[in-house]
């Protein structure tokens, strides 16, 4: 068993007094996580921790108690099990009192209903989802609108068309296409229209996937006008959010919910697909999403990689607040310069008086493997943030130039991520043979969230192995497996964003 090297007192003190390089902090914290002796030493060296704990104890009796007795988790889990067969719809009557468990139960039951179906029964899951979505479908206001996008143009239309609704010529062409495919164009973003179309398809395959509170049913038809149709539902109330219809690789239609019109809705003039969605004439300034993207691009231009902790918060009033946590004065000035021209952005320096301490002399890590895995985790964080902040519907609202910038940023970091992973694999292999082989690779479309989870797992394994100098342990094969999974996901994602 290797002898454990405990950090010196000076180093432990420095951990909470100075800005150490990120790799060194990772190393020390990994050690503290596994060494009670050093954890005790920290308590003695840094009395503020003990003081903080005492304060927590003092206020504990005055914190509000849970208003109701804690629920019986076992009973509730059994309810969830039973609900797999009979799923109550969420929602409640106005004015009724809801026990604390009910919100949890409604959500969990719904999640359970969506997630619990046995693997391999996608048809059953799709039918059940559609059935529930149809019975839950809310009455839409006359001002409900849809955003329709095709390779040639984008326009807004009422959610439900009546005979009296006038249409632009382009819409006539699409309506004819949908009619030929036996899909109800008058109310296309509805579970009913989708279910009725599915019922007419003799030969089909279906997939149901869940991601970030949304469920997507994807049906691939063997024959008929629509080759593939996907309907995405909001898992909280099963309302349709968006749909995509593929007639051929070059011919597709995307439909998404758009903000309600405050006045009578008429279809707007068509515009090229590369142009932004038509906006009211008064709306000439960049949207919040566009300003957020400009902000993130400005940060990206710092060349700091994704490694620097810089928060970007969008306030409810549309103001954007950037908080750099570890930029030196020079680079913070550079950030401010980069942000010039982006409206309503504030750079927040919560501890401006500490600037003289910023900018550690070197960010070089204690070990190239830790450096590489840190870089991987950082990039995966960035890609995940981009995916979260700019989902397809938001992306579609960006200007062509902004969409191009967003794509280029994704491609750049996705490629760099692949390079970082190769670097890590090389560095690890120099120490010990590493078999990159995953017994089970993930199915379905790779998503940045899965990438992030895998990258964080790899980062933690590498940090633990190297920080503890315990690289000979059984963790090594697990690292090989996770790294293989990460490489697979990164490659898939890179291909996807370059498409």
């Amino acid at each position, binding site marked *: 068993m290797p002898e454990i090297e405990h950090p010196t007192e000076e180093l432990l003190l420095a951990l909470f007094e100075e800005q150490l390089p990120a790799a060194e902090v990772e190393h020390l914290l990994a050690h503290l996580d596994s060494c009670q002796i050093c954890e005790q030493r920290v308590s003695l060296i840094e009395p*503020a921790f003990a003081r903080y704990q005492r304060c927590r104890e003092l206020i504990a009796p005055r914190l509000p108690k849970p208003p109701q007795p804690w629920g019986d988790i076992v009973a509730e889990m059994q309810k*969830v099990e039973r609900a797999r067969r009979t799923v109550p719809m969420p929602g409640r009557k106005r004015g009724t009192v809801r026990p604390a468990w009910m919100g*949890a139960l409604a959500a969990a039951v719904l999640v359970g209903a969506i997630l619990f179906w046995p693997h391999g029964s996608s048809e059953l899951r799709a039918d059940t989802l559609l059935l529930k979505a149809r019975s839950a479908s809310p009455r839409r206001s006359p001002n409900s609108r849809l955003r329709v996008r095709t390779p040639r143009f984008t326009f807004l239309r009422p959610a439900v068309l009546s005979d009296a609704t006038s249409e632009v010529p382009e819409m006539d062409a699409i309506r004819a296409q949908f009619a030929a495919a036996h899909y109800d164009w008058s109310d296309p973003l509805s579970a009913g229209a989708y279910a009725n179309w599915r019922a007419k398809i003799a030969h089909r395959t279906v997939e149901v996937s869940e991601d970030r509170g949304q469920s997507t049913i994807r049906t691939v038809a063997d024959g008929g006008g629509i080759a593939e149709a996907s309907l995405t539902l909001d898992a909280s109330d099963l309302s349709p959010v968006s749909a995509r219809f593929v007639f051929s690789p070059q011919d597709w239609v995307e439909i998404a919910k758009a903000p309600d019109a405050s006045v009578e809705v008429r279809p707007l003039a068509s515009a090229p697909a590369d142009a932004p969605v038509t906006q009211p004439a008064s709306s000439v300034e960049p949207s919040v999403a566009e300003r957020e993207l400009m902000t993130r691009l400005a940060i990206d231009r710092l060349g700091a990689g994704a490694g620097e902790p810089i928060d970007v918060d969008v306030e409810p009033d549309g103001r954007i607040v950037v908080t750099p946590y570890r930029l030196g004065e020079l680079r913070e000035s550079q950030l401010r310069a980069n942000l010039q021209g982006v409206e309503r952005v504030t750079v927040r320096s919560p501890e401006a008086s500490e600037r003289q301490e910023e900018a550690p002399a070197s960010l070089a890590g204690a070990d190239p493997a830790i450096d590489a895995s840190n870089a991987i985790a950082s990039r995966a964080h960035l890609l995940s943030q981009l995916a979260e902040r700019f989902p397809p519907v938001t992306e579609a609202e960006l200007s062509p130039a902004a969409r191009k910038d967003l794509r280029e940023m994704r491609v750049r970091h996705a490629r760099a991520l692949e390079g970082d992973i190769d670097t890590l694999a090389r560095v690890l292999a120099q120490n010990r043979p590493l078999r990159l082989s995953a017994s089970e690779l993930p199915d379905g479309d790779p998503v940045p969230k899965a990438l992030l989870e895998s990258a964080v797992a790899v980062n933690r394994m590498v940090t633990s192995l190297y920080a503890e100098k315990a690289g000979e342990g059984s963790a090594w094969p697990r690292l090989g497996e996770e790294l293989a999974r990460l490489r697979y996901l990164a490659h898939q994602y890179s291909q996807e964003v370059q498409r």
Partner: protein
Amino acid sequence: MVPPVSDDLSPKATAQQRVAALYSAARDGVYRYLLALGLDAARAQEVTQDAFLRLYVALRDGAAIEDPKAWVYRVARNAGVDSLERIGRESPYSAAIADTIASLAKSPEQELIEKEWLEGFQDAMRSLSPQQRACLELRGQGLQYWQIAEVLQVRTSTVGEFLRRGIKQMKRWNECQK
């Protein structure tokens, strides 16, 4: 410091047993964490229970969850932050600190020292970012650094930075008082 929750759950234990064991051990911590985030008691309790049920659903679905405790905190945090955005209210946590300070106002010498600490604590809680506050609270609950990173979805080194700033803030205030 509150000891970390034991993970000695039998591999053969059913998902229900695993969740029930964790629920019993960690629900108060999750609830308190949500209070510290700024949720009111009713919502904090609802979100806490919801997070454990979601864990059950995920485990039953075969999800590979390496650390269920960190997973529950993360899910609760995400739901809690969503609630905060909608509610936008002041934290009952701040009220508890203020109440505690008021209750110590006419107390013996030892309590006066603690009152000063609490005032530093109150000041730090006001001036720290939500993430820094979250780091301190989670660490106070005994979560390991990597678990906190998992809950907040940041790097471990960022957790270290958040903690450093939080501690520094508290020390600075107490030094100002001397």
